[in-house]
């Protein structure tokens, strides 16, 4: 079977595949760039925001405000068809519905956005209330409150927190695992949140666990950074899973491997935002973004309201911007705005004059593959269009962690190739299924 993508001939450089930088950037192993910086509460607000009504490039919320409305931070701007709200990131006055661009995963999308003016943050204290009333609320009350908080869980898809909690309630999960592992090189958002806002992370995690009916909470942390989580550690009743090995991309599938069966995995940032939201302490609805990269002189972690132009966030850096990270990100236009999907903004030059070379069979991809796949052979399968052989050698076990791409000395975009192969295997299987019917 020959694959369409083989004839596409788009594999000469790391850049060409969906805009990712895989296998082409010499990535730093640790996220040291922004690690030790203080987390500012929020950035200086611009004159206006274009709050996207869509967070994943697919589903759009229906606008529920009209031009001239005055909205407070956290009040709904839009409503999704299945429930779930999209809320105002900060307080301000609603303007027109405009078009704007967001960058999520492998694509940039033009979507509808609500323009907001006269922006200001709500007042907030730096600490959570000593006795948040959420502790005494029932699980149903918490579920309702959290569902309306306008928070999103980012996994393989971006989902509203309410929808995610409903799913967990129906699943067989018995414990909540709060992930504080970074999921891309350079990223340090989760680390910063855990180190600075540990109490809110714990509070949010407890509330979400209660709302979902889960009795145990575990925290998934990087073993080398344990000492940074003192505040979080002070919270009783939580155990920690210290992960000793860091992978370039901490995908959901990889986290599941770490967390084990029966776990509901929740992003630590969402837990923190949920905790803040329950106490009325959430400064703004938006993303915790790591701003870093080779052209960025002052790498930092910042809290960015949704709808802020990328240009304003990296105003002090020169050169192109990569939204979404070095492994999975893409070149972004400066006019694009932040949405719930964005966590990492890099200012770095895209790779130039870097081309993939032939596999030299060094075997490092296999050495570092957590699924112990023969990635080199699978790469041969990709190049030769041998889908059945790839299926036989377990390509579908790939966890999408990116370790193979990261170590490959020939700069092959192996992770992307594995994803393509998995897609091809699924297509082949469904084609066979159709033929048999």
């Amino acid at each position, binding site marked *: 079977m020959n694959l369409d993508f083989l004839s596409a001939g788009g594999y000469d450089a790391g850049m060409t595949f969906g805009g990712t930088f895989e296998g082409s950037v*010499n990535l730093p192993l640790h996220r040291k760039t922004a690690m030790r910086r203080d987390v500012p509460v929020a950035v200086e607000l611009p004159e206006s925001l274009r709050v996207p009504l869509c967070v994943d490039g697919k589903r759009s919320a229906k606008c529920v405000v009209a031009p001239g409305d005055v909205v407070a931070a956290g009040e709904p701007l839009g409503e999704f068809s299945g429930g779930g709200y999209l809320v105002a990131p900060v307080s301000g006055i609603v303007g027109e519905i405009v078009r704007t661009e967001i960058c999520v995963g492998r694509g940039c999308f033009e979507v509808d956005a609500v323009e907001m003016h006269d922006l200001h943050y709500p007042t907030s204290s730096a600490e959570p209330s000593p006795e948040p009333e959420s502790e005494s609320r029932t699980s149903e009350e918490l579920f309702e409150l959290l569902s309306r908080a306008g928070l999103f869980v980012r996994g393989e898809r971006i989902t509203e927190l309410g929808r995610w909690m409903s799913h967990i309630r129906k699943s067989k999960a018995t414990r909540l695992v709060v992930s504080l592992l970074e999921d891309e090189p350079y990223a340090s958002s989760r680390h910063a949140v855990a180190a600075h806002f540990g109490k809110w992370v714990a509070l949010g995690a407890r509330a979400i666990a209660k709302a979902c009916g889960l009795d145990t909470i575990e925290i998934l942390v990087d073993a080398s950074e344990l000492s940074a989580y003192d505040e979080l550690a*002070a919270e009783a009743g939580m155990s920690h899973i210290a*992960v*000793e*090995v*860091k992978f370039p991309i901490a995908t959901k599938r990889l986290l599941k491997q770490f967390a084990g069966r029966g776990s509901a995995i929740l992003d630590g940032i969402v837990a923190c935002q949920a905790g803040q939201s329950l106490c009325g302490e959430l400064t703004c609805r938006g993303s915790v973004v790591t701003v870093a990269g080779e052209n960025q002189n002052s790498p930092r972690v910042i809290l960015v309201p949704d709808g802020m132009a990328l240009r304003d966030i990296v105003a002090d850096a020169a050169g192109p911007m990569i939204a979404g990270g070095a492994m999975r990100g893409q070149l972004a236009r400066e006019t694009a705005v932040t949405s719930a999907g964005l966590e990492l903004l890099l200012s770095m030059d895209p790779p130039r004059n870097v081309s993939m070379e032939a596999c030299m069979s060094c075997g490092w991809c296999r050495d570092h593959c957590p699924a112990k796949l023969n990635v080199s*052979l699978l790469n041969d399968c990709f190049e030769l269009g041998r889908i059945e052989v790839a299926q036989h050698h377990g390509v579908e076990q790939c966890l999408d962690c990116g370790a193979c791409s990261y170590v490959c000395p020939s700069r092959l975009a192996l992770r992307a190739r594995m994803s393509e192969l998995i897609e091809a295997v699924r297509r082949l299987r469904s084609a066979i299924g159709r033929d048999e019917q």
Partner: protein
Amino acid sequence: MSGTIRTLPPTSPPGGLLHGGERTMKIYRAWTLAMALPLGWSVVVFGWRAAWMIIACLAGAMLTQHVVGTMRGRNSETDQWRAARWGAGMALLLYATMPTWLAVLLGSGAVLAGMLDEKYEPRIHPAVWVRVLFVAMLGFGGVLSWNAVTTMQTRGGVLSRDVLVLGDVTRSTSLEGQRSWGDDPRALAKVSTGRRDPLLGCDAVEQERLTMTLAPLTAAGESPRYGAVGMNADLETPHGDALGQAMAMRDIAFGVRYGMLGEVSAIGILLAGLFLVYRGYVRLVLPVGVLLGAALTATVWPVQLLEIDGATSWHWFGAFYEGADVGLVYVGYHILGGVVMMGAFFLATEMRLRPIMTRGQFYYGAFLGVMMMGGQLLFPAWPLAGLLAGMSLWSVFCAIRLGVSQPMKL
């Protein structure tokens, strides 16, 4: 930190993503440098002639890369280092007595063969057949340098490639007129021209001296009655008069024996090989597999025994025939000397051919070890035969196993 800490076992090698910053060119460069150690050693042992062969082979490889690479639009620094690695790798297999043009041809051929290792899928992939051709080419080289090969059979290499001699070592005497390092091997071939034993191919004096080489390695403290010796161990160290003091092992370790440029010193090969292991370019399991396979083969392979009275007899499990002291030394000689060490660390580890998975590498290594030792014992004149045949067979096997005529990696 309070709470229960459950540390997950690493799911990847310790140290995490060790190789994040490595690039192909660096790897080829490190391989070439690693090969420079045994090659440099051969220059010390064989002199200018060895240096000339290495230069010729490298020049052939680099020139071919330059011309063909420029024509194909692929002559980057990485390509040049790849060619250097091919050239150096081929130089390991040369004899100092080969004609220069053959060295150039082989260096050039190695680069051209390497260029064929690209992914495309005709029904008969050239890369598979090139490997078969490669075996033939080396055989052709052997024929062309027959002088060297025959010299090898009677003088070069290590203890008993094909014959285990039992002799009364108390009768041995040390040999006068030791030759020093760096002599022209062709001159050496003419030294002992006395009446040759039809089986051993050496004269009586050499035979006695060779018998002596094992003496210190048998029972400690007293002169052993028997020694298992080879019919070779030719080039002596400058300490030639110390033949009775563990000379043979020193010869093997430091490279005072005749053979291919890459096999002069077991220690040289080991150091270079361990450097590759340290850098992560070679997994230890592969050379260990080769050595185990070779040791096992040497242990069970029959030996022909020559008694003092001239009678001969064959015995299975040669390594055990005269007891553990003799047997261990016999196997040790086979492992440390000859092509086995070089094969284990430099040839079997050839990246384009070796399997990727750990288990696959062990099986591949053990298979090559058996083939290599079999070749060494059957064709002492051409010790690489087994190894190269093994590598070619593996290529063909992988191609069939995976349903493509392509040297894919199991």
